């Protein structure tokens, strides 16, 4: 089995890593941690939120991305003691490159993160995770941050849920 883990930043990277390390996988499962460095738009440069990409900036970005990918990969490597954890940094549009990477590597599964944005922000919600789940050649897992989702962390409501509308038929 081949699992592609597309990380966007450290926060989600660690959430994705902990999802992977807490899930049982078949023996010899291969993992690949990928980060896509997106091209900088003129708009971003004009607004001053980002520097134009001089070579040295680009190098630095690449180094940072590689370090982040390594951090995530290390967690998985440590947990499974597996040599089959690969790292990759790609340049381009995230949506396209993630799908492309999955196709080229014939991944069986893609694991991505999604910001659990609400309200108006939802309109622009995880366009990457949406596009990837639509176009991926395989199954896609969208990992949410524990803090943004009430699902995994809220323990008290758990026990009473058995006798709700659910039934054994």
């Amino acid at each position, binding site marked *: 089995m081949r699992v592609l883990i597309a990380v966007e930043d450290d926060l989600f990277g660690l959430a994705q890593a902990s999802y992977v390390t807490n899930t049982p996988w078949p023996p010899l499962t291969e993992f690949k941690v990928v980060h896509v460095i997106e091209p900088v738009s003129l708009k971003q440069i004009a607004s001053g939120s980002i520097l134009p990409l001089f070579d040295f900036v680009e190098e630095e970005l690449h180094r940072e991305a590689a370090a982040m990918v390594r951090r995530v990969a290390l967690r998985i490597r440590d947990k499974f003691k597996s040599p089959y954890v690969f790292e990759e940094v790609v340049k381009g549009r995230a949506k396209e490159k993630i*799908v492309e990477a999955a196709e080229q590597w014939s991944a069986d599964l893609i694991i991505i993160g999604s910001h659990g944005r609400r309200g108006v922000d939802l309109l622009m919600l995880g366009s990457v995770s949406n596009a990837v*789940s639509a176009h*991926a050649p395989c*199954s*896609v*897992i969208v990992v*949410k941050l524990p803090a943004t989702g009430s*699902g995994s962390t809220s323990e008290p409501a758990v026990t009473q*849920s058995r006798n709700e509308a659910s039934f054994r038929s």
Partner: protein
Amino acid sequence: MKVIIAIDDSPYSAQVVQELTKRQWLPDVQFKVLQVIEPAIWEALKTKDGGEARSSRELAAQRLCAQVRQSLEASIPTATVHCEIRKGDARVEIIDAAGDWSADKLILGAHGKELCSHSLLGSVSRAVTAHAPCTVEIVRPQALAQAMRETGCSRK
């Protein structure tokens, strides 16, 4: 580990379930097989016949959920599986079910009925991915992924 599997009556759901039975699961995994019955317009118009039709749909849903439960229990012996039928809008009910049960994971097919639909991702899976309080897996069975590749659907 609490996992909701949202199914519908399309053959696609069967493939999704089959895919899941091949996976590895934690020994303490609990599955909830969830099917949402969406109200049909003609049911509201003809109350009497509508009532009967509705209950027959409910029966069909129960039968399908029971089937899925059996195949899950057979292939994953340590798992506990139960069924739930909800009525209403599929998107809303699936998301609510995840919250109510504090599920750790929601699993659903990429889309129900159409293989090569206009949007490639069903409206249900899209809404659920966006709003669910937990991790969501969009399952795309191998056979279907293959078909998508052959028909060129995976490209915009």
